[in-house]
């Protein structure tokens, strides 16, 4: 009996040690951002491509207010409600962050205090970003207005309330390889970067499994809306028959080929995308034509 108990105790501590090792927040190599100088003008393009304002500005912000990244928007999910944090350059936000801190947050999902971020923050996409773009973005974000709004704690249920658990989640679902492995042209390659890395389009347009990992076999194939209202459309050639010109024009103006106009979250996305160059919008369109078609589910 005593031997058995000792065995159980050993097993328990072994399990605990494994959990500890597997779930350690892993940061980028120190040299990732060494010798990089940020450029705020280029950083503004990264900012719009990355869609930061969609989540981090106040809920009803318009115009210049969208540059005040005070946070506070709620995001209801089946795992709980997440609140976007303040990422303005102030003490309440990320005023003290170095380029390296921002890179770890965006590319590894790890805070300067070495905690895991929840993947409501799309580090799962930003991980594919070019470190130079992060440096430029860092420089641009310093120029934005500061806000003192304190962060609202997330309201997440057990076991996800334990951030360390996210180490396990990352082990299962955190991938750095491209969904479209081969980019046939430079334009598609640029589009792939904008869609898969900065634009994080797949976070809403790709369905998720029970644990919230992306189902990469149905990449951009449409998904239920995260807030439970309606659905996010299939934007592969299996679901979207718009021409490349139509797609680029939609991202610029919000108008579909039938001159309907974008609603909900996508209207917000269009507000960001309309700041990109025509070449970048054309690249996104070219990429969307190059991804494997996902057939709509038969009803």
């Amino acid at each position, binding site marked *: 009996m005593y031997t058995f108990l000792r065995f159980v105790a050993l097993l328990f501590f072994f399990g605990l040690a494994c959990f500890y090792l597997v779930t350690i927040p892993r940061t980028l190599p120190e040299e990732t951002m060494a010798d990089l100088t940020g450029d705020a003008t280029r950083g503004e393009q990264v900012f719009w491509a990355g869609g930061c304002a969609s989540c981090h500005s106040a809920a009803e912000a318009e115009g210049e207010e969208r540059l005040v990244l005070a946070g506070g928007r709620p995001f209801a999910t089946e795992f709980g409600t997440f609140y976007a944090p303040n990422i303005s350059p102030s003490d309440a936000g990320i005023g003290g962050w170095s380029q390296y801190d921002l890179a770890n947050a965006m590319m590894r999902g790890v805070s300067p205090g070495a905690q895991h971020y929840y993947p409501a923050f799309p580090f799962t996409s930003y991980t594919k970003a070019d470190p130079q773009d992060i440096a430029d973005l860092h420089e641009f974000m310093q120029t934005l207005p500061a806000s003192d709004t304190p962060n609202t704690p997330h309201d997440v249920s057990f076991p996800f309330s334990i951030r360390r658990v996210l180490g396990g989640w990352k082990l299962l679902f955190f991938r750095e390889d491209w969904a479209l492995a081969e980019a046939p042209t430079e334009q598609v390659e640029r589009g792939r970067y904008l869609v898969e890395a900065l634009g994080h389009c797949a976070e809403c347009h790709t369905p998720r499994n029970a644990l919230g990992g992306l189902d990469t076999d149905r990449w951009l194939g449409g998904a239920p*809306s995260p807030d439970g209202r*309606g659905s996010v459309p299939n934007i592969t050639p299996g679901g979207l028959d718009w021409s490349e010109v139509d797609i680029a024009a939609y991202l610029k103006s*919000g108008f579909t080929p039938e001159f309907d*106009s*974008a*609603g*909900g979250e996508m*209207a917000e996305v269009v507000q960001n995308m309309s700041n990109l160059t025509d070449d970048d919008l054309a690249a996104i369109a070219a990429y969307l034509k190059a991804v494997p078609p996902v057939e709509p589910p038969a009803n």
Partner: protein
Amino acid sequence: MNKYLAGLVMAGLTMAGSAFAESHMSEEDLMKAVTARQSTMKLYAFNLGTLGAMARGTIDYNAEAAEAAAGNLVKLSSMNQMAFWPAGSDMESLEGTKALPALWEDMAGVGEAATAMTEAAVAMEAAAGTDLASLQGAMGALGGACGGCHKAYRASD
């Protein structure tokens, strides 16, 4: 402009009143209202289509046609739509609409968005008859005005 503003505020107030008074409408009647407002949206789309096609160069610019289309947008945006939006006709109560319940909870915001739409349409009417460059310049604000309502009160799909 004040005429429109007053009209919209009135429409907003009456809408808030009708939201209470008409809460016992049958589903069939609610659907008629949904059809009415979706038909209005189609009229918007048709006229925007003319302007958009000229802006993108897919059809030739024609001052008269452009001005007519923009004028229709002004009329559409200043139409009294209070009966099109009865309480209980949001997407959580009915199939076949993407109107979010938030619309009925924020009449002040709806009024502001509607005013912005009228202003953008009036600006387009002036621009559309001038020349192609002016038309193209007014297109962005018009799209933004559509988005002003859709972002807050319409579900994305």
